[in-house]
């Protein structure tokens, strides 16, 4: 190979003129209409009152008074008040956050060694291993969770196996417990943890570790003081990719969790489909969004940093 010392021209050519607006128009309009406006509607409905047996089942905020010829604007705070009054809602927020947090930690504990093992294996093997990590997520999410139902059932494979080993006499109650929810989340989201970690670990500058060895640093210390800090961006990105969807997860607690596992995703779902209290569901979603703002911003920041670093 020859020495390639030239730099790639990274200065992006900017579009201008009518081309620019033509290109912006479609995605911008689409996303405004189908993504931004819905959020405004959620916000709006969260301030409306629920009424039964009407379509749609909520009051409108703006009403026109034909006698006074005045527009009346009324915001109803009752939904938010109800959420803060009723401990079951607060409980389900807290429980969602707790379960998402612990699952994220577990994912990191399992994902980091795997990502490390893949990133440091032979380059011919690496892509195949990565493919193996991603492949389950190309099959159906639902079916993968379903698989765990069969494993964790009282008469399921795991209990039969443990009984066969004579470790337990009576089948354990595994399905419909928090443990099952943890297993489900970790299982479903592990690939999203491994991929960013892999990207970060592959980029680790090994001369820094060598310098550490050279200066008399023990391997374990080297790992935590020199290796892990180089992969922070991957850790944050992976953790956010697990944490954010886990907070709002619906399918896993519904199929694997117990009746008490009323996580917020499931609560919103039930408020909408069972109780048909749309304003309350909207208010619950708004608060969930507010909770997720911090991790989402964190995620975007690391991504942005990644991009600017990559461009250097």
């Amino acid at each position, binding site marked *: *190979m020859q020495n*390639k010392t030239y730099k*790639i*021209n990274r200065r992006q*050519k*900017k*579009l201008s003129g009518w081309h*620019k607006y033509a*290109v*912006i128009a*479609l*995605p*911008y309009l*689409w*996303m405004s209409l*189908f993504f931004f406006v*819905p959020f405004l*509607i*959620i916000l709006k409905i969260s301030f409306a009152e629920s009424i039964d047996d009407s379509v749609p089942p909520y009051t409108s905020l703006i009403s026109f008074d034909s006698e006074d010829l005045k527009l009346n604007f009324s915001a109803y705070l009752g939904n938010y008040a109800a959420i803060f009054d009723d401990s079951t809602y607060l409980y389900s927020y807290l429980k969602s956050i707790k379960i998402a947090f612990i699952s994220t930690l577990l994912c990191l504990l399992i994902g980091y*060694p795997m990502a490390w*093992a*893949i990133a*440091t294996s032979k*380059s011919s093997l690496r*892509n195949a291993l990565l493919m193996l990590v991603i492949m*389950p997520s*190309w*099959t*159906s999410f639902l*079916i*993968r969770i*379903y*698989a*765990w139902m*069969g*494993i964790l*059932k009282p*008469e*399921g494979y795991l209990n*039969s196996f443990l009984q066969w080993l004579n470790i337990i006499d009576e089948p354990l109650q595994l399905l419909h417990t928090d443990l099952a929810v943890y297993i489900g989340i970790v*299982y479903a989201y*592990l690939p999203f943890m491994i991929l960013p970690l892999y990207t970060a670990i*592959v980029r680790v500058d*090994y001369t820094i570790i060598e310098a550490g060895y050279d200066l008399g640093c023990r391997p374990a210390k080297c790992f935590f003081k020199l290796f892990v800090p180089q992969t922070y961006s991957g850790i944050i990105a992976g953790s*956010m*990719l697990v944490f954010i969807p886990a907070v*709002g*997860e*619906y*399918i896993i607690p519904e199929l694997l969790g117990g009746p008490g596992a009323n996580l917020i*995703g499931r609560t919103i*779902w039930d408020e909408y489909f069972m109780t048909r209290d749309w304003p309350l569901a*909207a208010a619950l*979603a708004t608060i*969930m969004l507010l909770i*997720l703002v911090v991790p*989402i911003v964190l*995620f*975007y920041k690391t991504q942005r940093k990644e991009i600017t670093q*990559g461009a250097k």
Partner: protein
Amino acid sequence: MAEDVKENNAAQAETIVQTVRKYPRCTRSSILKFVFLFFGFMFLYLPIATLIVFSFNESKLVTIWSGFSVKWYFELLSDRQMIDAVLNSLIIAFSSASMSVIIGTLAAIVLVKIGRFKGESMFALFITAPMVLPDVIIGLSMLLLFVAMSNIIGWPEKGMVTIWISMVTLTSAYVTVVVRSRMRELDTSIEEAALDLGAGPIKTFFTIILPSIMPAIVSGWLLAFTLSMDDLVITQFVAGPNSSTLPVLVFSKVRRGLNPEINALATIIVFIVSVCTFVYWLSRVRADRRRKRDMQLALNRKG
């Protein structure tokens, strides 16, 4: 040419990694690596393996083996409801992947090629946010929009169209990210060279840029396809009574407990995905080998 630089960097990284790896050869670390990978992949694949094995079980009780049989496959294939759901899913996945490729590619162009404009940071947020937000929120917000819209303009009705719109909104975020990263890697002087040689911006896009980002567009399409094929939560919110997709149907069955038909379905899905993955993998290995041979060719006849 950008690829060459990458190639070079990769080669350098490779040598560095190799020199580092020289001293802990076949020692604790390689055993450790094997252990991590072995248990990791056991965790990822054992559940899938149980699904496959028990899809050939004769008994209706999924967890107890009573003999080999393929009767659940026949049952599955004669399930009219299931076939309809699969068709619905395929139609939605195909059409929404195609649309989101257009929107996502345009959005990637906007993000990479257009400098500051009014609402630029808003745009960047919009376009990628569906990727990180929980499905429940997206589903609920889409639904409320559709309800509001049909109250005002009488359109759309809950059904295939609403699912399609929601899926496009969700998956164009992914397409944008995939295409954007490929466009960022492109050596912009290629584009400038085309302009310099007299091709106008539109012609340059179609003759130079589009062929270069085509691989990313294809993988974006595939990603969008699998995502919409797989979505349950958002679809459940916006689906109408006659537009049940595969995940919606499976969910309603699974809720009622284990069902050997689902095992058969899972086996078919896993089979299709692994065949596709294998073909894709093979084509990449081939392309890789060809590239290496070409590079050898270039080096041998230097001048």
